[in-house]
């Protein structure tokens, strides 16, 4: 980990660095969400920092705090061999709904952020503005809610989804007989042999 990186960030961004700490040797900076992308780009490009690898990106939920979700990234520099942790805080609960839960994407800075951001979107509902392909990744499209939020009950079950008739854009799927409720049944294949007549 690198204390010098924190000094540098503080000197460069001043007020945008909300707080810093170095618990257990992990240097951490909390960044104002509006300048998230800018700080990340600086970390990537500055020759003294050159954090070229995004090792991890995840979320943490603190429902009692005002911006309740922390987006946490861990950076590593393969040249300097130092690490830093950056955080930003987004999202509030208004009438039991998550609002303002958006932050700029860092995919243009590190290509590897793509799936990590999709996962954080899936699990916490954080929207990454400008993400090229923000879809659910671990859960299925019909899933409601975001399972890693603290107010999502762990025991909750969701109903089985019906067979999909349309694709994600709403266009009807051209499915042939072995799909659907008759899937796997021998009579389901009648379509192929005599044009659907029994």
């Amino acid at each position, binding site marked *: 980990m690198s204390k010098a990186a924190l000094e540098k960030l503080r000197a460069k961004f001043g007020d945008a660095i909300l707080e810093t700490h170095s*618990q*257990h040797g*992990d240097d*951490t900076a909390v960044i104002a969400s509006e300048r998230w992308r800018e700080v990340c780009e600086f970390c990537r490009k500055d020759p003294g920092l050159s954090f*070229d*690898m*995004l*090792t*991890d990106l*995840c979320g*943490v*939920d603190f429902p009692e705090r005002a911006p309740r979700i922390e987006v*946490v990234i*861990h950076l590593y520099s*393969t040249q300097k*061999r130092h*690490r830093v*942790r950056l955080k930003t805080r987004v999202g509030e609960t208004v009438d039991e709904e998550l609002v303002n839960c958006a932050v700029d994407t860092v995919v243009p800075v*590190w*290509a*590897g*952020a*793509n*799936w*990590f951001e999709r*996962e954080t979107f899936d*699990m916490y509902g954080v929207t990454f503005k400008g993400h090229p392909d923000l879809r*659910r*990744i*671990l*859960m*299925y499209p019909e899933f409601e809610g975001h*399972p*890693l939020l603290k107010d*999502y009950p*762990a025991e909750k079950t969701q109903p089985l989804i019906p067979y999909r008739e349309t694709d994600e854009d709403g266009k009807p799927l051209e499915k042939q007989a072995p799909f659907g409720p008759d899937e796997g049944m021998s009579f389901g294949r009648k*379509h*192929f*042999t*005599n*044009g*659907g007549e029994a």
Partner: protein
Amino acid sequence: MEPIDLDLEDGELYLTADPMHLNMGPSHTATHGTVRIVLELSGETILKSDVQIGYLHRGFEKMCERGTWAQVFPYADRLNYVSPMLNNVGYALAVEKLCDIEVPERCQWYRMALGELARISDHLTCTGAMAMELGAFTPFLWFVKAREMIWDVLEEETGARLTHSFGRIGGMASPPTKDFKELTKASLAKVLSLMEEGEKMLLKNRIFIDRLENVGVISAAYAIALSWTGPCLRASGQAYDIRKLHPYLKYDEVDFDVPVGTKGDNLDRFLVRMHEIRQSMRIIEQVCERMADDGPVSINDPRVALPPKEDVYTTIEATIQHFKLIMEGAKVPAGECYSYTEGGNGELGFYLVSDGSGTPYRCRIRPPCFPIVGGLSKLLDGSMLSDIVPTFGSMNMIGGECDH
């Protein structure tokens, strides 16, 4: 005789025109792990691919927030189910970092030995399965036979072949058995001969080489940008091995090399894994020499370590301590830490947040193969349909950790 396709007009089978859409998976015979690849093909060339995961999602991180810190060990086992010991050790080190605990020296050596055994079994599984998917069944059987020998050692030590749950906060569940060193050395000799035999058979096989060489090439810079770690990154020529660069346990005291590739193609990834097996054997040999034959393998700290069983049954203090640790869990000081170790596939990170209670507030795992599979579609685009199988095989996707 009438042609049989006379009355097919209604339900005629036709192939869609260019580009053709093809689903590969979720359960495909030539991929290990449940993954679905949606392909857009022009002839046999892949125009666009979309890798979809999540079929093995079990809510690992959510479950961790319900139990005690110690109850995460069985879940950690099931993340990477071909090298569970590495996950156990990785998680134990993360919690110990949060508690500022250092485990006894003998335990550190022991963790290294077991971890390297797990790494050998991980690499054997990956390379064996990769060969099998390309049609070479014999080396797969030999590698699995070698893996069985390693699992025999682990069974002897932990009592379980696959999901050991052997790590503890502040130590290991039990000390090494009396015959551990002899058994390990004897098994490794057999494993090495089986592995070399299989390796020779593969590397002298024209078909195998042709299907791996110059397929799935990735540069070191791009692999870093995609957050790749482990053998897949090292095959591109970047010698990023946490054991060497940021040593934990006793890795700075043993002598081993970090094999790197030159081109970053499938063959390099295969070769790097094979050489890493040899390096792991070197490490284990040194560990066997240096590990003391007696001494504690757990710290004697009543806040986190369970008391010895005989005390639990005979003294009231130990009974209470045992009860508190099991029912409430060890209290981990509030704070956060990120701890990283070299797993079978690369950097295995645990980001833990504690609120000072006996339950993890957040237990984030950074599975090494998640970003690697995330970069898979970049490698597939523009290649041939038949290249998917070797390229996917060389990634070593483990559904358990990739899908959390």
